[in-house]
């Protein structure tokens, strides 16, 4: 099939002067679940009131609380005490204006956790829709540099597909956020979602959860770590397992124009994974004959990695070598603002060559998100 690959057929960047796109910024609903009530049917408001439901930044048990108390940077607190990420005006000043960010992709994690496991399937459909309307109404108009990734109610793939249809026409929607579950992404469970995303021309945006390894139904590839730090270090294993699944289930053969970005998993792990996938495919191809190209070729045409959290080898030259070996066209810059481990523009990736920086800081994102 001669469908153009995403890397070969970028939309013409309408704003080619953009030099800095941030693919991972976390907004926060201000005021708890009541702020979402205007965006949901009254019977569901009543249901959530009766349940005493609320939104919580952390859905983790004490074992996985950040040892410093919060994942949100204290210096990202707004002037009136608003928690970091909850005041669009302050995010404009503290991130966009201060660092010259031309475009920020917003993704909300509370909705992702609810969609994955914390809400029931029917509740999560209503909640995702309410979250999405909240951000499209209350954040996107606040600044033309904001883009949003609507959260999909992943427990119900048909409803999730309908949500893609509902939000796709909004000009501020850059991708759709598929929170990972313990059903790996190559499963046909997700086909209705991929079908709609492809029809809408929107990439699938996958972000590290917050419920991973804690609840049945969430991704759980790493046993039960004792501490926050162990869980943090191994978070990318979820992405690795899902990427392997996407390749060997033949997802990109079924959906030749599907594009996926893996966010907040870093990327240093991806290079040996590509080597291993290629090698295993050479010897075991007969088990998955629908995998018709080298696995790394699918990745180059369909998958991108958001850069944060950047790994820091002792010798900076090793980092440059890693980027060269993996391929800078696969990388999309992200800060993870306002979280504690964010990568700040102007402070990172400075040793890379100018043309490599231009791709990572803007060009690749402009292509992927068709900005």
């Amino acid at each position, binding site marked *: 099939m001669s469908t153009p690959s995403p890397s070969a057929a970028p939309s013409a960047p309408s704003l080619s002067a953009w030099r800095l796109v941030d693919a991972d910024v976390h907004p926060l609903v201000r005021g708890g679940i009541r702020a979402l009530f205007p965006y949901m049917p009254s019977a569901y408001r009543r249901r959530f009131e009766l349940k005493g439901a609320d939104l919580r930044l952390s859905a983790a048990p004490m074992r996985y609380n950040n040892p*410093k108390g919060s994942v949100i*940077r*204290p*210096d990202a607190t707004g002037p009136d005490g608003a928690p970091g990420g909850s005041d669009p005006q302050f995010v404009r000043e503290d991130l966009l204006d201060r660092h010259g960010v031309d475009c920020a992709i917003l993704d909300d994690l509370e909705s992702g956790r609810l969609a994955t496991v914390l809400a029931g399937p029917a509740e999560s459909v209503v909640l995702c829709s309410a979250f999405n309307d909240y951000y499209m109404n209350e954040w996107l108009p606040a600044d033309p540099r904001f883009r949003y990734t609507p959260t999909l109610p992943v427990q119900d793939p048909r409803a999730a597909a309908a949500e893609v249809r509902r939000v796709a026409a909004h000009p501020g929607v850059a991708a759709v956020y598929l929170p990972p579950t313990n059903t790996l992404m190559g499963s046909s469970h997700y086909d209705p979602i991929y079908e709609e995303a492809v029809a809408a021309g929107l990439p699938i945006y996958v972000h590290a959860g917050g419920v991973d390894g804690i609840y049945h139904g969430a991704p759980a590839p790493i046993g039960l770590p004792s501490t926050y730090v162990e869980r943090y270090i191994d978070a990318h294993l979820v992405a690795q397992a899902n990427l392997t699944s996407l390749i060997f289930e033949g997802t990109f053969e079924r959906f030749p124009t599907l594009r996926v970005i893996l966010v907040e998993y870093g990327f240093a792990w991806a290079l040996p994974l590509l080597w291993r996938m290629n090698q295993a495919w050479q010897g075991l191809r007969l088990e998955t004959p629908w995998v018709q190209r080298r696995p790394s070729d699918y990745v180059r045409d369909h998958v991108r990695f958001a850069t944060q959290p950047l790994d820091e080898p002792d010798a900076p030259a090793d980092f440059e070598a890693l980027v060269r070996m993996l391929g800078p066209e696969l990388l999309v810059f992200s800060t993870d603002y306002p979280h*504690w*481990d*964010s*990568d*700040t523009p*102007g*402070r*990172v990736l400075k040793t890379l060559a100018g043309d490599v920086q231009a791709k990572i800081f803007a060009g690749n994102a402009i292509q992927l998100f068709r900005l």
Partner: protein
Amino acid sequence: MDVPLGPEESFPVGRFRVVGVAGREIGIARLPGGGIRAVRNTCPHRGAPVCQGTLGGTMLPSPRGVLDYGLEGAVLRCPWHGWEFDLESGRALFGTASKHLVTYPAAVRDGMVMVTIRDGGAS
């Protein structure tokens, strides 16, 4: 050179107030147990406004399962990636990093906080 930065009472106890000195941002804090510290408001890791971090103590290196909290009032923890620095020497604690926080000699003379700045910046 010695630079007067203001009356002792104008600086908080247990957290930093940042002032501009000769083109630098310097954070001044009075310690809960007495004494005063001055540091440059830039984390050597990624340039965070380090004085917005936490001034306190931390867990000391210890055997498995043993927690030993100490160094109260001697540690500044960066608000971004959580790097911890000895407020006196500017060194990253326990050999966790080789980069130093810039510190300045500070003292109170006749009720006035004085900081010593060398040409070139760091003490």
